[in-house]
């Protein structure tokens, strides 16, 4: 199987590493995120022939990461994916879909600790609270006079 090489790096070393792989003619095999507690782990994999090396980097939620897609155009898919599923913010990417690449129904579903997910949760909670409040008020105003025929159906989609 492929050699299992995992190298831990820091954010400030990332640019140098990527430039060096690019110079030596390695190709970007993969870029993906995974959530580690309240942080995101990014994995960059580079391959040349049977050789394979993986760079591992821990970043904070919402931290800005320099994009690799200007050097490796095929990374634009991975970057948009990581930013939608994990809330990773890439700077200077080739194409930024701004959250409309996969358009998941839930923001950053793979990383519930990310900022967009928390904002979404907070806004969803606020909306639910507001709805409760309205219902309460409505019930008070109408009192026991009459009940509405039923809850209005919320259109889907």
């Amino acid at each position, binding site marked *: 199987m492929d050699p299992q090489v995992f190298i831990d790096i820091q954010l400030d070393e990332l640019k140098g590493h990527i430039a060096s792989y690019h110079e030596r003619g390695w190709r970007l095999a993969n870029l993906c995120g995974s959530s580690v507690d309240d942080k995101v782990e990014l994995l960059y994999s580079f391959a040349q022939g049977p050789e394979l090396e993986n760079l591992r980097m821990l970043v904070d939620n919402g931290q800005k990461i320099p994009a690799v897609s200007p050097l490796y155009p095929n990374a634009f898919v991975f970057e948009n994916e990581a930013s939608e599923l994990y809330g990773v913010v890439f700077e200077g990417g080739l194409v930024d879909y701004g959250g409309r690449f*996969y*358009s*998941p*129904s*839930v923001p950053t*579903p793979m990383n519930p600790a990310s900022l967009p997910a928390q904002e979404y949760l907070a806004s969803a909670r606020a909306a639910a609270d507001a709805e409760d409040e309205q219902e309460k008020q409505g019930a008070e105003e109408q009192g026991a006079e009459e009940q509405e025929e039923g809850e209005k159906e919320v259109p*889907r*989609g």
Partner: protein
Amino acid sequence: MSASVKSPWVLHYDASSCNGCDIEVLAALTPLYDVERFGIINTGNPKHADLFLITGSVNERQVPIIRQLYEQMLEPKVVIACGICACTGGVFKECYNTLGGVDVAIPVDVYAPGCAVRPETLIDAVVEGLGILEEKRLLLAAKSLKPAELPARPSAADKLVQGETVAAAWQKAIANALQTAGQEEQ
């Protein structure tokens, strides 16, 4: 169904299937199963299609597209959910981006289960769908009748009484009712 029915044209759409059911839909149309020999043609245009074969579970982004395709099809039309994902959501039901089966977006007439759905199941589903298509066509023809005048659908139990199927018997009853209604008007 009577001995001869119209050859339906089908519209195939992949809602969010894994391709497994899609290639089986195509396999049903190509040699070995070859339903094309009965004049069943896979068309790309919803306005030409009678049957809507839809595979895969549905996510939020697909709902408006599926509805649009469905609305573009002319009446009468039949929707066939091909494969277990299209029926219920299947293995993907638990996924965060899956709403469920096709029936969350549009009404489904025939459910064809299987992972992946087998071409034999699909052919059975299409035959089943043809019966429903015929009944829908009848109801469309009987649109001018008042509800009281519409003859009841014969039950399946007496469907072979005179060597006829439900649809054929119903068709006769509706034709008679239409004739009587026409005479009364005159």
